[in-house]
């Protein structure tokens, strides 16, 4: 793939913060590639360098070294040329609290010379038309997030960057944001969504990159990277003890968890169902148990620590 096939690409990207306790490597030689189109999940535990990477891409933080491109343009040098194609929400939405939602959007729209009426369009698109005249400080977290999305849409961007967009949202809000991201991708835009929650990304992303301690650990289609990482199968059955014997006889690793059995390492529920059924045991629950992000990290890094790299003095 050429550089223009990627919405975002970085090479050897590095950022070190200096503080009272010494240097701290936030991003370490990161090679990130986000293909054009679809939703790309940017996964990593808290402190792994996701937000710092996004901030560097947006010119908010200076990289120590390395190269970054957005739609083939070098950033931050050529960011002014490409910023019109990029909408971003970094961490929590940040607007002037004493201004109304509409005033906040109006100021941003004027700054980029957005067409007249664009503010109304994005308020309508995000369901904030009725609340546009309310002060931002009175908005709920979900409304603040929707206003932030409305702001990103002012530019009619080709690339949207959402940094932990569902933090603090209730289930309805999470569902709504997830739907919005999917819809934007289906419209032909590229969506980069960062998260520390595996399930969240898994449900919406087409491709994914996983970073830990500022380094890229894995990247590719979701199915390839995390799709088959099943921890096991949870089995509900009327006679758990006899079922355990049947499964162990078949060579499976079985643990008893209360009234259920946990078959570790088995990724095929059908085989378990067949084994039990042929022995006259009828299952009342058969649920694949997915691994958590922590497990994926542990597997990818072979390390017992998940957070950012420690201080470097």
């Amino acid at each position, binding site marked *: 793939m050429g550089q223009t096939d990627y919405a975002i690409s970085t090479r050897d990207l590095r950022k070190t913060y200096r503080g009272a306790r010494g240097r701290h490597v936030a991003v370490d030689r990161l090679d990130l590639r986000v293909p054009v189109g679809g939703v790309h999940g940017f996964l990593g535990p808290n402190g792994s360098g996701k937000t710092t990477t996004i901030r560097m891409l947006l010119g*908010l933080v200076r990289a120590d070294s390395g190269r970054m491109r957005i739609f083939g343009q070098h950033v931050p040098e050529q960011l002014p040329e490409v*910023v019109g194609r990029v909408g971003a929400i970094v961490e929590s939405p940040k607007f002037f609290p*004493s201004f109304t939602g509409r005033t906040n959007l109006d100021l*941003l729209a*004027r*700054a980029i010379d957005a067409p007249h009426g664009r503010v109304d369009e994005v308020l309508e698109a995000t369901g904030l038309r009725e609340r546009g005249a309310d002060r931002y400080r009175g908005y709920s977290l979900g409304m603040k997030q929707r206003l932030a999305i409305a702001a990103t849409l002012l530019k009619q961007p080709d690339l949207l960057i959402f940094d932990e967009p569902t933090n603090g949202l209730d289930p309805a809000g999470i569902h709504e944001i997830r739907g919005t991201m999917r819809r934007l991708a289906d419209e032909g835009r590229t969506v980069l969504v960062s998260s520390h929650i595996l399930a969240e990304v898994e449900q919406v992303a087409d491709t994914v990159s996983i970073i830990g301690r500022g380094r890229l650990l894995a990247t590719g289609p979701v199915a390839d990277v995390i799709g088959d990482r099943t921890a096991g199968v949870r089995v509900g059955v009327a006679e758990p003890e006899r079922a355990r014997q049947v499964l162990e006889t078949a060579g499976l690793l079985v643990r008893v968890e209360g009234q259920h059995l946990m078959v570790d390492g088995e990724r095929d529920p059908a085989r378990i169902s067949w084994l039990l059924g042929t022995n006259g045991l009828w299952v009342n629950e058969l649920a694949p148990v997915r691994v958590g992000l922590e497990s994926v990290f542990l597997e990818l890094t072979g390390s017992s620590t998940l957070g950012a790299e420690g201080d470097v003095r």
Partner: protein
Amino acid sequence: MRLLGVELRRLAARRLIGFVLLGGLAAVALVVVGAWFTAQPPTEAQLAEAQTMFEQELEYWEQEGDQMVADCLESEEQESERLGEEVDFGCDQMAPQLEWFLPYAPPLEEIFTSSLASVAFIPVLLMLIIGVTATAAELSTGTMSTWLTFVPRRTRVVLSKIAAPALVALPLTALIMGVVVGGFYGVYAFHGTTGTISAELWTEVAWIAVRTVGLGAAAAAVGSALGVLLRHTAVALGLVFVWSVVVEQILRGTVPRLQPYLLTTNLLAWVQGGTEYWINECRDSADGVFCEGVEHTLSLGAASIYLGVGAAVILVLATLVFRRRDVG
């Protein structure tokens, strides 16, 4: 220019600007109310009391005046001999006068310029606050990062954020100074105690107002730059307060020769069109060490250079820092 226009809109939408303007107008209204009392001519009661005290003093003078003048002349002669030069004790002006016993109410012509210069620091300080909050609030709340994801050209952004408060400060300072000048003249004219306000004095008053308006704009710009540098309103304003009120006052008292290099002295010289300061200079004499206060002048030109260079340094520093700094 588009960014400047947006910043002006943003400032216009801020309620703080209205509060600051109202606060400024309230402060100068209090000053004008104070002037109302000082501008009043003596009342009938004050005149009657002064007349009584004058007559009592005159009666005493008629009895003892000749002796008092003689004693005065003798002392004057002794002092002249001691110093080896003529001294004047004012012995010929000892006869009591009625105005000695009247409350002193100088006419406006005597106090117009000095009063304006002292009030000028109210709008200048308020404009500084407007400037500081304009940028510090944005940086401390993180809204600057949202802004930069829309407008990443940092030099343009910071210049627009410095220029907008300066432009807003022009009409606000002019309005406040207009109220001060009009208020002073109005209350003294009402009481008939303006004295003779010559065209020359009006010109001087106008220049003080114009220079104050310029200083207000500069204060707003410098305040914005300080907000960029220090990122917190309280820190920036605290620094200004500690420097101008604490550090400079200590320096003024302990190292008087630094006076021409103090910010407050130069601000006063700018507003007044020049100012005087005194330095105690001592020399050895036959009677020991002889010290006297020597008057020096700080010109408008010198103050202009001092303030101009200082403001330029802060503005350039803020621009350079903002261009490179990580924004949270």
